[in-house]
């Protein structure tokens, strides 16, 4: 049976490529293409495994929207456009919706591309492919590979944090920055402690001795598909910029 899953190096290269395009472009047409070809499939795949990542959606949309509104009310928006919605003293200008849309498309594009890598790669396979096939330093390759191992643990940690928040009478659907910080602080604390000890354990199990034997880059149909998708995004970038 032909291999369907792209190699980790190809997924990494694809997600880096998408990120560069998404960051460099401010055209909604380009971002819509990167979102459709990388963001959406990545988010759908990623959410199937790591449902907690759904928190990224309100974090991005609400955070960006509040920011644009603050810019508008501070009077520093260069072209606010017409008022789209009005309720008492609240005015939502075109600028706020457009900017929120563009930034959301950008964030969802590169986070989706990252999720493609996370969902389709296995940590040991990633460590070997990234260091042996594309020559990424083994420390960086290991950090990336270990991040893949951490995600299921973060999902479990988050479940426990939410359970206790419910019992303590705190919101489980984060809305304010304070909600986010009080959810993220324990997550980070547990994750950093875990990462420190895994680092120690890996050193004591000879990670520094690990020899990287360079291998020839293997490429097949799945990698060709990724190259084709990236080319479409590059063309869109130049066409709409």
């Amino acid at each position: 049976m032909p291999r369907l899953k792209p190699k980790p190096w190809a997924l990494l290269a694809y997600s880096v490529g998408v990120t560069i395009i998404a960051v460099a472009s401010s055209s909604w047409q380009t971002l819509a293409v990167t979102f459709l070809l990388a963001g959406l499939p990545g988010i759908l795949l990623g959410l199937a495994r790591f449902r907690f990542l759904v928190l990224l959606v309100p974090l991005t949309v609400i955070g960006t929207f509040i920011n644009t509104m603050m810019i508008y009310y501070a009077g520093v928006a260069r072209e606010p456009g017409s008022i789209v919605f009005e309720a008492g003293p609240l005015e939502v200008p075109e600028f706020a919706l457009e900017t929120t849309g563009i930034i959301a498309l950008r964030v969802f594009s590169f986070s989706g591309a990252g999720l493609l890598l996370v969902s389709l790669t296995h940590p040991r396979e990633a460590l070997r492919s990234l260091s042996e096939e594309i020559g990424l330093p083994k420390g960086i390759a290991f950090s990336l590979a270990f991040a893949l191992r951490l995600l299921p643990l973060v999902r479990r940690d988050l479940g426990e944090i939410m359970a206790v928040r419910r019992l303590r009478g705190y919101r489980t659907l984060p809305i304010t920055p304070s909600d986010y910080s009080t959810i993220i602080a324990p997550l980070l604390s547990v994750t950093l402690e875990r990462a420190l000890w895994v680092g120690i354990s890996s050193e004591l199990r000879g990670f520094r001795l690990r020899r990287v034997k360079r291998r020839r880059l293997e490429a097949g149909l799945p990698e060709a598909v990724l190259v084709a998708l990236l080319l479409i995004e590059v063309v869109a970038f130049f066409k709409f910029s």
Partner: protein
Amino acid sequence: MIETRIEGAGYVAGKSVLRQVELNAGEGEVILVAGPSGSGKTSYFLAATGVMSNLLGGWVDGVVKLGKINPLEPSGFLNVPRIVGVVLQDPEKQIAMPTPYDEIAFTLENIGFKGALERRVREILDRFGLFNKAFNSIEDLSGGEKRRVTLAAAIVHDPEILLLDEPTASLDPWAVRSVREFVAENKSRGKAVIVIEHKARFFLDLADRVVVMSDGKVVEVLDTQAKAGRSLFKLEDMGVDVGISSSVASRTYHAGCRGELVRARDVDAGYGGFGVVTIEDLEICRGEVVALVGPNGSGKTTVLKTLAGLLKPIRGRVDRRGRAFYVPQTPDYTFVHTSAAKEVEEALSRAPELAGIAKGVGLDVWREVPPYRLSHGQRRWLSILIALSYRPDVLLLDEPTTGLDLKAYKGLVDILREASMRSALVISTHDVRVVKDLADRVYITSEGRLLEVDPAKAVAVLEEAWR
């Protein structure tokens, strides 16, 4: 094989956490390093392996030799993994790969194993009873199985020396037995083994010497002949859990229900539509302490969460009266504020009567540090203080004694006894002392069912299981 004469060692210049630590182990010897929390046991582990000076930016003065290697030198530290196998306290903070196969292969790949890697990995998986779970996700393994993965990964390259840091933490007595068997087997194969463990009773019979640490120093060394009788009482006085006596006075239990708080009949508790544990009939009353025991992964936490109302039963209904509060095994999950002071302040504003407890455990020193930077014991206390401040009718605690030394354990028992006067307590535990010292009734999770067992019988089973 192991020679350590540490004059001083620390994580930051000028501040020593270890002083005058001399500890040696020869071929086929097991040295047990015991002592209360904060006595310097883990710091010794980090100093002796070279981690403190080579990785953590700390310093070590003195002599350390592991075989012919000096781990304090960078070149020696590089070669430590070739002759040393390590097991850390928490498997989740040790395992770097997603499956048992990958985790074991990771060690061999790192040291450049010359033989047939796949065959060696399969052999070791078979030896540790993990062959059929070689490609299962680590997350789907029980705590005992995760521990076996770390033991297998430590020994796969046949090291001469083994260093085990709190290898029985969070393990059920059956899994403790597999750690004991591992130590005994490696002793008989001529390995030098250092076991760092505050629950010293699990390894007393296997150890050739017991080294007791306190305040960063070695305060007592007992050899094989002295490890009995009065010496054991002396160890217990030093805060070492040797399991020779019931550590606290027994609790008075007034039989008869003082008000039913939880009732579950014909309930299936589980995640995602899959039944894990069937609760046939469970009634919990005010003033009762109910212990849940059973092997790692048998569904105790799932039962706790279902009783707390955090998980919806797959089948049946749980009736609760009053407020339930669940305290997870990892205390960090309980915190919502970024400073310990704010957590204590909020708890005491809700329940000023807890000021005595906060003071007793040192939490009255309102520090502006994040709660996550407190010691493990202090974090545990803080999480329980928070739970009590909600004045729960039912307090559900998941492995509350994990990582607590003898003194802290006794303090916790006192607090929970007092809490049991007002509330019902449901405690999921592997710790036989909790069953002995606190539990009025005991339930065991076994083969997907929750069954009530006689407390005395449960104590006997738990005591027998690890031997």
